[in-house]
């Protein structure tokens, strides 16, 4: 079965990103596919390379990156959520004359990509705060 995940809660202040990762790993172990993970609202901060992370820890951006690298799952972060919170790709950072802060393995995307995931996935799981 093809899953997509919508993650909303802040990666530091809430368990949302960690719980979503636990779900993704368990789904993989059960033989399912994680097609796309869409980080929205506060969860967009997972895509900040400013965020201190530790390879040991689940739910951090590096742990998500490892999951994506080994499974091909897409890690997308909502463009307006990200920019509003200072997660900037090279282009936007240049426009604002500040350092870029988007972590590798994450892509900035519009909400249309979430809608596409809703239409093409068998299940969409939302992980709130």
């Amino acid at each position, binding site marked *: 079965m093809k899953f997509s995940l919508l993650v*909303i809660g802040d990666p530091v202040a809430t368990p949302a990103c960690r719980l979503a990762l636990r779900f993704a790993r368990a789904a993989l172990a059960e033989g399912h596919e994680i097609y796309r993970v869409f980080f*929205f609202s506060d969860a967009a901060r997972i895509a900040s390379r400013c965020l201190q992370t530790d390879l040991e820890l689940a739910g951090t951006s590096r742990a998500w990156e490892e999951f994506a690298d080994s499974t091909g799952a897409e890690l997308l972060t909502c463009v307006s959520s990200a920019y509003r919170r200072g997660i900037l790709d090279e282009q936007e950072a240049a426009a604002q004359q500040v350092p870029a802060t988007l972590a590798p393995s994450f892509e900035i995307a519009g909400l249309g990509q979430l*809608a596409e995931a809703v*239409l*093409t996935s068998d299940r*969409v799981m939302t992980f709130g705060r």
Partner: protein
Amino acid sequence: MQEINAEKSLLVVLRHPPGEDALTSESLDLAMACGAFIPATTLLFRDAGVLQLLAGQAPDLDTGTSIEKTVHALREYGITRCHVHSGSLARYGLRTGDLCMPCTESDDEQCRLLMKDHDQIIGL
């Protein structure tokens, strides 16, 4: 499997009150985007989410948007089905006349049916 099933229906449930919390305006953005891409998108305002519909709210400081400003946009984006949970309105002493946009009042059982009648649900 990659083929888009345009028949798929989506229910977006909005449960959080408005205010300075960024999530509210972001939720409306999400609803509009889904409305644009998914023809069968329905909104349901319930619990503290009904407060998003109160008339006379100041626009969000960060984005300049408010539900009153987005109501026409919602329609432009293809969202014509808006429901509000009657029990939630009653909890806050509100009537549909207090709301800034027309919504279908739905009682407990009708809200349960709304959930069952859609293929996917996003709770915000």
